[in-house]
Structure formats: structure tokens, C-alpha cells
């Protein structure tokens, strides 16, 4: 899964003792994406992000449009009624 988003570079896929997480076998497919992402963000020299990884993990919010509009969590109808009643008081 992580290999869709990151490419292992400069070494043959295999074991590296990482400063952050100890020994990791980069030939395995089942390394948690959070671990890989944390390594990449800390400047780990053997990872390169793919285009897909860039698009999925690092979405540029400014390019999405409507940036000044705040996205608020949906409220239930009951909450809306109570809120408007409270405002009237």
C-alpha cells in the first residue's frame, strides 16, 4: 500500500535501522503509512514521494477553491432548533 505513495530510493529494498523507528524492512508491503509519512517528513533520505502520494497525502488546500468558506461539521436538526430558540431568547 505505502509503495503507491512513496518510492524507496538509493538502496536496494531491504532493511534500514531508522533513527526514529528502529529497524524496518522496506521490501515489505505492510508498513504503516503513518510510519512512512513520518519518516519522509523528518527528511529520511531513502524515500521519495510519488505523484499519487503527493495528490492523496498532501492536498494543496489553496488549489481547491472556496478557501475562505469554513467547512463546519453538520449539525442535527434538533441541535439547530435548540440553537435558534436560544438565540431568540
Amino acid at each position: 500500500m505505502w509503495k503507491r505513495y512513496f518510492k524507496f530510493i538509493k538502496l536496494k529494498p531491504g532493511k534500514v535501522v531508522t533513527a526514529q523507528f528502529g529497524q524496518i524492512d522496506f521490501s515489505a508491503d505492510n508498513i504503516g503509512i503513518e510510519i512512512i509519512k513520518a519518516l519522509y517528513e523528518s527528511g529520511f533520505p531513502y524515500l521519495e514521494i510519488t505523484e499519487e502520494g503527493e495528490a492523496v497525502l498532501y492536498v494543496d488546500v489553496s488549489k481547491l477553491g472556496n478557501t475562505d468558506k469554513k467547512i463546519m461539521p453538520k449539525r442535527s436538526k434538533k441541535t439547530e432548533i435548540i440553537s435558534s430558540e436560544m438565540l431568540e431568547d
Partner: protein
Amino acid sequence: MGGITQKVYFGYHADVATFPPKPVAPATLETAAALTGDLTMKAGKRMFEMYLTDDTGEFKIDPVGEVDGKSFVSHLTLFHPGLQKKIIGFMNAAKNENLVFIVVDSNDNKFLMGDALRPAVYAGSPDGGGTGKTTASRAGMSAEFTYKTANIYLYEGNIPLTEATV
């Protein structure tokens, strides 16, 4: 907590492409103690790990020299159990080779033995090696490596245990 972990990492000095740079004009004591960046290997080369029996390994720092000429000699001693091909091959290869080691202590401090100018070298077998006399003896090989350095630094990078491609 004292002692070192049950694995040390080593490579041939000649196989190292780049050593992490030493601190230049460090602003704090902490930055004066740490190397920044990674040790990288030449294409097709890698570092290796070696197992050692728990509580048999030690990393020791000895100050040496006279006033105004002080430096350090660091010592790594370890005992590898058994006399398998791997350890015999290692001893054959290491006895006259220039090496680098990364030693991890029980507090996850990593010490790099070796720099661009000076390697770690095999210094002998402090507790001997062989089969032992009795069947209850522990067969294996002890080894000591030394590294002479002006300063002691902690290594904060990664350790590549697979071949470099570039």
C-alpha cells in the same frame, strides 16, 4: 541504564561513500556532541549487523595524550557465541581491515567508530575465542576494536543494511 544492545553494526571503511559532517562552531554542548546526517555507502556496498551475547559488550572511552594534546581512544569489546562460518569469516576479514562501527547503547545513543580520516581497527581478542574446555563451556569469539579520535560524537542518522544503488 548501562551496557550496549545485542547488535552492533559494521562496514568496511573503504566502502563508505560519505561520513556525516562533524559540528562546526556549535552553539550548544548538545550540538557539539552530535553528527548531522547519514553515513552512506558506495554503490553495491552495505553495512552489516553482528549479534553479541547480552552483557558481554562494552563501549568504553579513554582520554589519552598530554596537556594541550588530549584526544580519545574508544574501545568496543564483544563476545559472539558459537564458531559459525559467519563469525570465522568476519574475524578473517576484519583482522587487518579498516572498519567502521555503529554501537548502540541501552539508552539508544549511537556511537560512530570511524570517520573520513581514521577507521576502527581490530585490536585483539580480550577474552579469547574457541570451543572452551568443557561441554558446559561457552564456545565463541571475543573481539576488541579501537578507534582513535579527537572528539567523541553521537550518530543520529540511519543505518543502511541493504546495498546502496547509487
